[in-house]
């Protein structure tokens, strides 16, 4: 294995490693725009210039394979001057509209100006004018003047999504990123181009102008949009969640996530949520009453549950391993419930896969549910069979899907559940179809609870409670806890 020295620090790296990768191992920063780990090498931005001993010309670290005994400098005056000028070349035609730019605060032009620039600009000529706010597709907007033509987005559509919508048109400083006529950037991975854009050229239509990024905090979790289980960063503040971006996990999702995953934060925000217990009161001729404390509601449910003869359980694969464990432990282990139905989303496309990340199984924890069932020796019945014995159930506990968008059959299925005597619907989101149920209990969304999701290939990944949106909401574990208290059952 070749050994090289960067700024006096030595490291041995596998054959074929480039200098920029070796420097990363050593935590030595090398500025770059066009280089991206998940894409091919463009070598165009010329920011990663380094000095290599015995080489008269500065070299780009991104395309320089390490050779044994190589001595590299990234911080001597010659390199610093070259990087400063590369940066200046990026900035001379940049509009410097940071105050109205969404990227401000996480922009590599700003960051590198602070790290390598801090000069007084000498460019006093008229800047090149290009188009602003060009809509590239349903989700992405381009500002051609802010663009530094690093070609990351173009390479993404060539190499990752393989949809080839973007290209660099024209040449020289008239170059622009654009789509071909009538071929908008509408692939299922389009927002990744926004993530990898190092400047404010590509912005997300969904996130644009919603928040300044310095008012947001991030926490890491797992996307609950499908069984792939992409690792994501969720950005939030006191007003809720604002965006979801991919986090690198080479084993699961690489650098990317799909556009559907971008929307999963939406249902976690207040306007879509069930904010309090909703109870249908027979004594008020079927009117609903809102706001009973969850603990009190669970007490009453527990009381009825104790007298119930035939209990049905309806589960979706949208909850955590820990929640299933608690649920099955209680209902199967203690209450000996045997009618347990498994509600799958769209049966026909359930096993489909687009070849990159998107799976037809739109649940984050199908494997977790199946394993928990196996552990408790439970035979999961298809939800379609519920209808056969619906009227015989005097009690039905429904762990409703959190991500309702992927359960188009909610209304139809709820009609079926309503045939049982008393339905307790545990749900994080509000839905008109739930109105006929006796109880609606507000559940935590995936950003509000800790737990584990097991993805399609059996990788168990932790999700984290990063934010509190509905303070009264509970997890299935807490539901079980509340019920055991009122029923005097210990688990």
């Amino acid at each position, binding site marked *: 294995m070749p050994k090289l020295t960067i700024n006096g620090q030595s490291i041995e790296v596998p054959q074929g490693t480039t200098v920029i990768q070796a420097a990363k191992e050593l935590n030595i920063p090398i500025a770059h725009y066009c280089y991206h780990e998940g894409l091919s090498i463009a070598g165009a931005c*010329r920011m990663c*210039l380094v000095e290599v001993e015995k080489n008269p010309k*500065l070299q780009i670290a991104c395309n320089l394979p390490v050779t044994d005994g190589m001595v590299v400098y990234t911080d001597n005056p010659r390199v610093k001057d070259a990087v400063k000028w590369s940066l200046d070349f990026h900035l001379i035609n940049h509009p410097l509209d940071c105050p109205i730019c969404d990227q401000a605060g996480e922009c590599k032009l700003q960051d590198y100006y602070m790290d390598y620039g801090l000069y007084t600009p*000498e460019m006093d000529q008229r800047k090149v004018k290009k188009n602003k706010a060009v809509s590239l597709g349903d989700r992405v907007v381009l500002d051609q003047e802010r663009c530094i033509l690093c070609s990351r987005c173009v390479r993404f559509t060539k190499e990752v999504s393989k949809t080839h919508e973007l290209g660099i048109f024209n040449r*020289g*400083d008239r170059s622009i990123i654009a789509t071909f006529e009538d071929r908008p950037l509408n692939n299922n991975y389009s927002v990744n181009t926004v993530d990898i854009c190092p400047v404010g050229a590509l912005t997300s239509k969904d996130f644009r102008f919603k928040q300044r990024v310095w008012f947001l905090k991030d926490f890491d979790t797992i996307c609950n949009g499908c069984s792939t289980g992409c690792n994501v960063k969720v950005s939030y503040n006191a007003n809720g969640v604002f965006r979801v971006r991919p986090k690198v996990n080479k084993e699961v999702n690489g650098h990317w996530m799909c556009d559907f995953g971008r929307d999963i934060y939406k249902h976690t925000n207040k306007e879509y949520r069930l904010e309090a217990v909703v109870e249908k009161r027979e004594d008020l001729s079927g009117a609903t009453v809102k706001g009973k404390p969850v603990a009190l509601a669970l007490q009453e449910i527990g009381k009825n549950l104790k007298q119930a003869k035939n209990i049905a359980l309806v589960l979706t694969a949208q909850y955590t391993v820990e929640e299933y464990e608690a649920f099955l432990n209680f209902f199967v282990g203690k209450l000996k419930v045997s009618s347990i139905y498994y509600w799958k989303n769209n049966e026909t496309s359930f096993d489909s896969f687009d070849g990159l990340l998107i799976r037809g199984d739109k649940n984050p924890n199908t494997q977790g549910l199946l394993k928990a069932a196996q552990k408790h020796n439970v035979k999961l019945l298809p939800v379609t069979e519920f209808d056969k014995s619906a009227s015989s159930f005097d009690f039905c506990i429904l762990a409703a899907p959190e991500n309702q968008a992927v359960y188009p059959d909610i209304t139809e299925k709820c009609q079926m559940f309503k045939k049982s005597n008393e339905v307790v619907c545990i749900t994080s989101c509000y839905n008109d179809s739930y109105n006929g149920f006796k109880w609606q209990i507000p559940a935590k969304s995936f950003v509000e609870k800790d737990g584990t999701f097991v993805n399609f290939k059996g990788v168990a990944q932790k999700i984290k409670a990063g934010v509190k949106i509905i303070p009264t909401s509970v997890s299935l574990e807490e539901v079980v806890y509340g019920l055991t208290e009122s029923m005097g059952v210990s688990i």
Partner: protein
Amino acid sequence: METKLLTQHYDKPEYQSLKGYQKLGGYEALKKAFSMKPQDIITEVKNAGLRGRGGAGFSTGMKWSFLPNNNEPRYLLCNADEGEPGTFKDRVMMERAPHQLIEGMIISAFAINSKKSYIYIRGEYMAPIKIVEKAIREVYDAGLLGKNILGSGFDHDMDVYRGAGAYIVGEETGLISSLEGKKGQPKLKPPFPAVQGYLKKPTIVNNVETLATVPWIITNGASEYKKYGTEKSPGTKLFSVSGNINKPGVYEVPLGIPFKDFLQNECGGMKPGYELKALIPGGSSCPVLTRDEALKSTMDYECMSQLGSMLGSGGVIIIDDKQCMVDLLNILMNFYHHESCGQCTPCREGTGWMNKITTSLLTKNGKLEDISLLHKIASHMLGTTICALSDAAAMPVMSFVTKFRDEFEYYAKEKRSKVKGDVHYAQAHH
């Protein structure tokens, strides 16, 4: 001093046709080459010291020997995208002696075992394209291309590819991109074309003049070729000369002749009333030489590099005392700004910036500080990009503002040309 090794028959119209070419000894070198081992041809060219005539002056035999030693298909590309301002020798070669080029290509292809070659001709060269295409047809009809050429067992096919008019595809990897049907943009090196070029296969790209020289070397031998020129720059070279001289045109002379003699003899001296002020020796990308430097220079690779310039493509631009250097530099900057492919940031942005500054000088908005700034921008464009276009734009700027600083300062201060007064290029042409 004109020494016509290659251009001996250029004034005979029949030399353009296969029959005429053969009558004057054409395709004899090919027959001889087929009697040699391919490796020996490479050695012969290496021994002749033939240096690439496209501009870089790299040893041709050496370039060929970089090909990996395997059986992968490989390509020979002829770079006939002659775009360097001031250069028009390849055009003359293709128009007057297309078969010389084709013969050279077949021999070279045989030497490097290539079954397919392309001649990439710049799109504006309509006449050469037609002439070369016609010549290729003749050669096919005569059985000198195709299967089993002259019973040698060697197969070779040749095609002409017409460029779409971009300077940048004269750069060999840019040419390869364009030939592959992509946007003509240079590629990152490594990998070098000899290892991974056209369609990711080993590829050799040679200039028209380089390939056209090969038959002569095969016929007459390396030692004969080395009798011409200097030790490090053997042989003859075609120079295309422009400027206010009596006989502008293309001349073949042995490398190493004094420029002073070349100007007097071949070019017929300066036009009456014009004095030599400066010289661009090898196409517009080469740093400019002052009158004094020019008059003591010899026309070979080593002397030009000693003087801080380059022999380049042999596009000799003679600048007389009636020319304004600010004007000239602005013309060059318009060109490089227009032709930068836009891939690398320093070149994309730098060419535009420098062009704006030279234009602002001409439009009387220039400042004294702009002159140093020009030099600073250019020096930071030098050697920092994928290909040499950035250098090509930077070098004239640095040499112009250093060697003719007085003219630039005068323009910045007085808002008019030191040489031409109030009339400048921009006014005269817009």
